[in-house]
């Protein structure tokens, strides 16, 4: 028979845990809201950039008029022998299956590209730790050698830890720049970014987005996607409702419409620089903004996942407290009954 005192102690500890998970849930909900705002604030810029690029495509002879071949190296497709994979995970755990799910799809991606050499850039501590256990780091670049020796078919070329907490555009644009450079040098023939896309709490999926070469400007080129399970989605919605976070996607129509006008008017612009030159300058920035976008969405998704996980934990703790209280009451009852029986039988024996 369990001791009443022991059970009481256990209940107290579960209550404490519940308090922590509840606080974490509230914090995550607030952070999620902030992350969504950030993503919204980034929209006009990316939309306008895309517009200018699109209108430049029409003006500058980006594509060869006869063969239709693109003239810009970032648009040219070539056989993929070496590819770069950017993996976006979180820095922290306690977010349910958030990190595991991403790493699962990463493994799948690597398996499905078994005949190619893959360089990996890890963003987020969890992804880095996972990849490090599995794959070697790329050897330091020796300036004298033409081709860098590879550490293996899959190797880690870069790690970025602790950038997600306070996400700045500088980081994304720097990474974008280095990726573009490697691509133009021919070190890599394709670039993919794997992350958790987050439109809203109910519209989430894991995607492998194809970044380079650019197939069509302004279109997200998804190569591999995995929708969240129905059950997971239901849980997320419940958590969002109880935390007071909107479930529907944030209304972006007004923002998008205003941004859509930028640089797209049917007027004859004076170009201070030749359109070709502008195009060349802007295209690498476009990659940067795409990476920035992916990071923003991943951060929002991470907070949403943590909120959901903590909501579940809070519920589970409540259930546990209920059942423990029941057990405790039963034990107390049994104890009292036993005492009465002892007294009664003692009296009867006299």
């Amino acid at each position, binding site marked *: 028979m369990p001791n009443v005192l022991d059970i009481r102690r256990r209940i107290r500890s579960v209550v404490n845990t519940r308090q922590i998970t509840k606080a974490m849930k509230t914090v995550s909900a607030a952070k999620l809201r902030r992350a969504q705002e950030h993503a919204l604030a980034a929209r006009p*810029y990316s939309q306008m*950039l895309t517009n*200018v690029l699109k209108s430049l495509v029409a003006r500058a002879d980006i594509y060869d008029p006869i063969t239709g071949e693109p003239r810009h190296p970032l648009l040219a497709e070539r056989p993929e022998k070496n590819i770069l994979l950017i993996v976006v995970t979180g820095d922290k755990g306690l977010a349910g299956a958030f990190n595991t799910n991403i790493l699962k799809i990463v493994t799948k991606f690597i398996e499905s590209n078994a005949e190619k050499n893959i360089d990996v850039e890890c963003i987020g501590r969890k992804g880095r730790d996972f990849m490090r256990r599995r794959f070697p780091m790329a050897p330091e670049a020796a300036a004298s050698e033409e081709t860098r020796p590879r550490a293996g078919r899959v190797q880690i070329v870069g790690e970025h830890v602790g950038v997600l907490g306070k996400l700045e*555009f500088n980081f994304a644009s720097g990474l974008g720049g280095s990726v573009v450079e490697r691509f133009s040098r021919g070190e890599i023939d394709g670039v993919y970014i794997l992350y958790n896309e987050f439109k809203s709490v109910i519209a989430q999926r894991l995607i492998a987005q194809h970044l380079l070469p650019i197939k069509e400007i302004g279109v997200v080129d998804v190569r591999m996607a995995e929708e969240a399970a129905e059950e997971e989605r239901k849980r997320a919605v419940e958590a969002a409702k109880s935390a007071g976070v909107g479930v529907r996607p944030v209304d972006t129509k007004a923002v998008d419409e205003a941004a859509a006008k930028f640089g797209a008017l049917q007027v004859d612009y*004076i170009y*201070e620089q030749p359109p070709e030159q502008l195009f060349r300058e802007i295209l690498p920035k476009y990659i940067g903004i795409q990476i920035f976008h992916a990071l923003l969405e991943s951060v929002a998704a991470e907070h949403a996942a943590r909120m959901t996980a903590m909501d579940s934990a809070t519920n589970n703790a409540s259930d546990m407290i209920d059942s423990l209280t029941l057990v405790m009451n039963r034990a107390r009852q049994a104890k009292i009954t036993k005492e009465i029986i002892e007294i009664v039988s003692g009296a009867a024996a006299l």
Partner: protein
Amino acid sequence: MPDTFQLEIVTPEKLVVKEVAEEVQIPGRTGYLGILPGHAPLITELAVGAITYRAHGESRTLSVAWGFAEVLQDKVTILAETAEHPEEIDVARAQKAKERAEQRLKSNDPEVDYGRAEDALQRAETRLKVAAEK
């Protein structure tokens, strides 16, 4: 002819300025451009520099780095990678960046990327200049 235009300065992080302005000066790649209402449509790349605009008779300055601008008759939109008001600039940091860049430029180390150091120096100097105008 209108005597004002809508001025918007956008960065990837936020909308920095949204105002009705009477005049704006932007640092184009090939030199500063002064823009008044009713300007012909124009698209230009921005260099590192200071944007000065006048709204309601009051003049304000921001430091910007890389971006581009679209000018229409009644609207000027500036996309910049960074855009900071004088009060947002971290003077100590800019000062340090300036010193670092100067040191790099002076050294004879073949590893130094002079283009980058020069860019950094220019950014730091603009920041300091804008901050001083507060």
